[in-house]
């Protein structure tokens, strides 16, 4: 069980990290953040199972779920405001804005 969960965690972290670094669309970046969070969740459960403390792993997973949801809500609200004010969600275009 732990090996399958560990491979899933590494895979999710890798996919999310690749998308975070490569994607230009702000919404895709937020989706990539969510994928990284799923990887962290799986890693916490695998760590809890390995350490013999699954209750602690589960409580940390609940904490991560709540915190990441808060981050997603704030990020989506910011994304909507960016789209309204600048008319684009292209990170490359946003980074060249001045003033």
């Amino acid at each position, binding site marked *: 069980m*732990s090996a*399958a969960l560990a491979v899933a965690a590494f*895979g999710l972290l890798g996919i999310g990290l690749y998308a975070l670094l490569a994607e230009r669309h702000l919404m895709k970046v937020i989706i990539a953040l969510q994928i990284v969070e799923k990887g962290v969740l799986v890693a916490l459960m695998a760590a809890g199972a390995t350490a013999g403390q699954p209750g602690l792993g589960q409580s940390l997973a609940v904490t991560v779920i709540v915190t990441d949801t808060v981050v997603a*809500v704030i990020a989506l609200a910011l994304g909507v405001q960016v789209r309204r004010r600048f008319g684009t969600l292209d990170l490359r275009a946003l980074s060249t804005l001045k003033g």
Partner: protein
Amino acid sequence: MSYVWLAVGTLICAAGAIRARNLLYSALWLAGTSAFVAIALYAAGARQAAVIELSVGAGLVTVLLVFAIGVTGLETMEGPPLLPVSLLWSLVLVPLVLLAVLTLPLLSPFAGAGSQPLGLVLWQQRTLDVLVLIALIFVAALGMLGIAGGRR
């Protein structure tokens, strides 16, 4: 064996979320990823966390994503990635390999030490964390209202 299929399903859905050209399909693939992670959590014994992940990750976040995509538009961007491809792959693979080298040898079969109930851990051992989370939720709600209600 079922954990292998859960891991494969999770990774396929996550890859689909990134590869999809339509943002709505990306949000649905992400919901599938959350569902698979919730099933894996449930199968590993974390039943409360599985229910929370399914309702929040596959439910609330998906609804919020669909709403935000409906407001901002469905169009995606085609073009080169933000970083050079060689640098991109090295930045992704090097930390993953290091993580695997450091953590995989530590994996061992679960020793069955008897788990404590989630409520006991949250409210008695991690009371401060829970109070900080409650404050964070309120701060996030007020912050989101302030950001979303800003002048155009």
